[in-house]
């Protein structure tokens, strides 16, 4: 699970900045629809944070407060849960403070995730992935089943398509994440009985910390 930043840091930062601008400048248009708001603007901010802050988060010093990636992955659960609350989502349209909080929280999460993923072993990752995907899928199902509008600013049709998109996204994220984890899990399973038996790895040494 080593995250290599193949593009030069400067190129990654440039793309990250472009994502941030793409999320911020057409803000009114993006936020006019629930679907664009949740599944275009929010991911754009997250990716911006990832590309701008990611190289910093994989450094060992960042790992001091994020051993096994648990801090960043817990942050992921809270931030994603919060912005799936329809009332919070709608507040961000009307309140500059909440809007600033939305950008800040997703940038921070994006910046932390690459490091956390690099530090978390596959069991930890599966635990958080399960929680995250389950929550997102349930939210998507709820959005589709609610007979009333969850946000006053978004029509019911928009809410239903957002719900469908959330379910699709939750499945897609789970598949993509498992796809990335598959080689690690396979490598572990080929060993007799356990995770520490590789001669190259000393027992008791945390391969993932730092």
């Amino acid at each position, binding site marked *: 699970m080593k995250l290599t930043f193949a593009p030069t840091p400067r190129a990654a930062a440039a793309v990250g900045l472009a994502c941030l601008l793409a999320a911020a400048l057409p803000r009114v248009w993006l936020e006019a629809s629930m679907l664009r708001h949740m599944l275009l603007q929010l991911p754009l901010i997250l990716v911006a944070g990832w590309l701008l802050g990611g190289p910093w988060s994989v450094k060992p010093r960042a790992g*001091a*407060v*994020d*051993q*096994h990636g*648990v*801090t960043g992955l*817990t*942050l992921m*659960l*809270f*931030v994603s*849960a*919060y912005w799936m*609350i*329809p*009332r*919070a989502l*709608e*507040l961000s349209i009307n309140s500059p403070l909440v809007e600033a909080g939305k950008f800040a929280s997703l940038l921070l999460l994006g910046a932390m995730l690459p490091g956390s993923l690099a530090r978390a072993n596959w069991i930890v990752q599966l635990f958080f992935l399960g929680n995250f995907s389950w929550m997102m899928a349930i939210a998507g199902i709820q959005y589709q089943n*609610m007979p*009333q*509008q*969850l*946000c*006053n*600013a978004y*029509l019911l049709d928009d809410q239903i398509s957002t719900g469908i998109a959330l379910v699709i996204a939750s499945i897609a994220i789970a598949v993509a994440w498992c796809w990335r984890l598959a080689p690690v899990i396979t490598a572990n399973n080929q060993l007799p009985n356990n995770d520490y038996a590789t001669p190259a790895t*000393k*027992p*008791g*040494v*945390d391969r993932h*910390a730092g």
Partner: protein
Amino acid sequence: MKTSTNSNSSSGLLPTLAALLLVCAAGGAALYQGTMGFELVSTEDGRRLAISRAPLALPAADIHQPEPGTLAKMLHDDGRIAIVTFIYSTCNAVCSVLGSQYQQMQDEIRKRGLQDQVRLISISFDPRDTAPVLADYARRQHADPALWRMVGVDKAEQRKALLDAFGIVVLPAPMGEFQHNAAFHLIDRHGRLARITDVDNPAQALEHAVNMAQAPDDGGRL
């Protein structure tokens, strides 16, 4: 080697635990705030709960009802509890249902002799609803002016301020219609928005209004 790694990692665990605690505390507080104490998730429920916790003074608005005046004067000089809904006169969807509900409520108020306790007000958010248009709409709805007024707000910025204060969001919908969060808004004797009830249950709105009318004055004028 092994012990030193272990002791390093166990003493190094503290910053992670502290950070984790911080994330959980901040995240929990945010979720608490976003759901108003884990009570709700929708904006409309939030609007209703906020009003029920703290009655809201309404902004100034020049209105035609159909004769010119101000909303504050209309509400303040009356002494009755007002049940307010927002409409536009060309509406074919929920407002026409609201219209017939108001007709039934008007009959109910007359039947129970509550004319001096409760009144009905329909406020239009559509600038095309001028005084004559609303007067015509009132005739079609068989509105009794003593009980049920159709009100238009003259100035665009005051209309927006009023809608914002009530928390009404009007969205353009297909076929030249509007979609908006419809509800019964109960205005207390001091002209404050005090309660919001469900549009599907006019009987409940009327009961709340009667209760408010018969409750002793809470001194809101101070």
